[in-house]
């Protein structure tokens, strides 16, 4: 019984990561029909952001705030992955609208590039690059309208990009000189250590659970609530939902659908970054860490249904728990004297990758019986 509880708790933690990442994937897919194969790498960037933030908070001036670096890194990861996502949308995906296969291939290419990037470029330079991209994109937004509308706006933009590049290079050098670990490129995995208050166990109803996993669940809860509020309450949320359902009409109503695409892609990617923070708390961080989750994310989206929050939540927790039950071979511990043939089968699937195969097969079978996923949409709109 205790083992089963353990498994459920672990499964929910893994499922939380899947949930946040899959939400990002589904929002983007719902709006633009784009399947972003680089989503896992955006998670990886989020995980590396946590690592970099941790090292920066070990510097003497920031040391007093070290305990809070995880919280800060959630915001930073959102921004880092969001910025990379926006660049990806503006440079590649926008050009490939209406050709899903090309988009698939292109985003796959991007995922390989990002993996190689973190291997061969020192993290300090990566951070510098992100800083300059962020400044370069955001600074022109704050120019007064008079400048924005003048023909010289190009030059102002050029100037702000030059400024951004300068700041980027300076901060890269600064980080390299202060933290030597970040100044060298390395393809080895790195480890994020949780601050003291997040380490150890917590006791709930007589059972002990690792605090980091509880933290992951809390991060998920907050991000899911935040994203729901954003989509339901804010003006951009209304625009995003409207464009998802009827792009042409929204254009006719005065919505700049291009802007909606950029913002949505940014948010979807940012969510991948937040999921990445959770990933870094679950295990070590390496260039391939995103690949471990991306298949799960896709399965969640397929099983839960796009734009179906309840379905997504159940699907991610379900898949998370199954992964833990099957992959860690816990079924054998929970039920020790099962028949030999069955236990052999379970042993066979008791590795992470075989568990994935098993879950994949189970989902395919499930979809045979319920093709529209866990919770099909109902109502007048669906029938027509």
């Amino acid at each position: 019984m205790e083992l089963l509880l353990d498994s459920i708790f672990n499964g929910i933690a893994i499922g939380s990561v899947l949930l946040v990442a899959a939400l990002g994937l589904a929002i983007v897919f719902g709006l633009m029909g784009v399947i972003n194969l680089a989503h896992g790498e955006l998670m990886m960037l989020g995980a590396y952001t946590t690592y970099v933030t941790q090292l920066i908070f070990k510097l003497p001036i920031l040391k007093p705030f070290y305990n809070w670096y995880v919280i800060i890194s959630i915001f930073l990861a959102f921004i880092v992955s969001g910025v990379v996502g926006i660049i990806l949308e503006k440079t590649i995906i926008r050009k490939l609208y209406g050709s899903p296969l090309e988009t698939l291939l292109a985003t796959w290419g991007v995922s390989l590039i990002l993996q190689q990037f973190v291997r061969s470029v020192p993290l300090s330079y990566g951070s510098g690059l992100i800083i300059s991209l962020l400044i370069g994109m955001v600074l022109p937004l704050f120019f007064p309208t008079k400048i924005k509308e003048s023909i010289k706006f190009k030059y102002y933009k050029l100037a702000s990009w030059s400024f951004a590049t300068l700041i980027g290079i300076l901060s890269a050098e600064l980080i390299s000189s202060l933290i030597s670990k970040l100044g060298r490129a390395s393809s080895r995995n790195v480890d994020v250590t949780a601050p003291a208050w997040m380490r150890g166990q917590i006791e709930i109803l007589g059972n002990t659970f690792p605090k980091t996993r509880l933290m992951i669940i809390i991060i998920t809860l907050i991000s899911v609530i935040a994203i729901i509020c954003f989509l339901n309450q804010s003006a951009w949320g209304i625009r995003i939902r409207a464009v998802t359902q009827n792009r042409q009409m929204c254009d006719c109503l005065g919505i700049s659908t291009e802007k909606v695409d950029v913002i949505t892609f940014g948010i979807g990617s940012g969510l991948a970054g937040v999921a990445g923070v959770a990933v870094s708390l679950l295990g070590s961080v390496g260039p391939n860490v995103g690949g471990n989750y991306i298949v799960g994310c896709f399965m969640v989206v397929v099983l839960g249904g796009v734009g179906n929050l309840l379905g997504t939540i159940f699907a991610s927790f379900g898949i998370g728990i199954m992964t833990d039950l099957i992959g860690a071979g816990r079924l054998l511990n929970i039920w020790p004297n099962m028949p030999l043939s069955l236990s052999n089968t379970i042993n066979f699937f008791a590795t992470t990758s075989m568990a994935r195969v098993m879950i994949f097969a189970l989902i395919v079978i499930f979809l045979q019986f319920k093709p529209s996923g866990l919770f099909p949409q109902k109502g007048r709109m669906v029938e027509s």
Partner: protein
Amino acid sequence: MSKLIEIKSLNIFYGESHILRDIDLSVKAGEMVCVIGRNGVGKTTLLKSLIGLLKTKSGEINFLGENINRQMPHQRARKGIAYVPQGREIIPYLTVEENLMLGMESLPGGLSKNKKIDDFIYELFPILKEFLSRKGGDLSGGQQQQLSIARALLGEPKLLLLDEPTEGIQPNIILDIESAVTKIILEKGIGVLLVEQHLHFVRQADRYYAMQRGGIVASGDSSELSKEVISKFLSV
């Protein structure tokens, strides 16, 4: 009165097929102009090209004296053109209230700055007030039509493009829609370009253009619409 919109020898193609041929047309402020013609002559195509959903092959679309040929639909909407399409195009999973709010996106500041729905809309279409929190897609056809017009009006347009607003709608609601449109023209002085098959509504217009095979073949004051012209151009 000055011309709101003026179209000069407009040509539109769908791929290879030539749909609109050398259309000349204009609408003034405070005027209701009706386009009539049988199914498939290109009335919807005309309105779509005015809002910017279709690319102009040749010709000019001038709005308030400015050539808007190359502008995107959302830019035209912000300039003051509102479009009520043939299929109504309500956003189905958004509530009626949210659908109405979308109409205000074309106001300065967009829907971030304009959240309060003006009460005049509920005076025109009282039914909408009852259903504010219902999903747009769950409304009946007639209610959706009213919502679609209300949404367009909330953007305070200078020119309203209406594509067969009475199609498939029961007679008493047709009258509601008709009186709402004529009232708004009087009160706000906007121009209306109406595509319509319903004779009673056509008669409310100031002027008409009759289309045949993608071109305009007759035009004049609606009061001059004779029985022959009507039977020739209206599929009634």
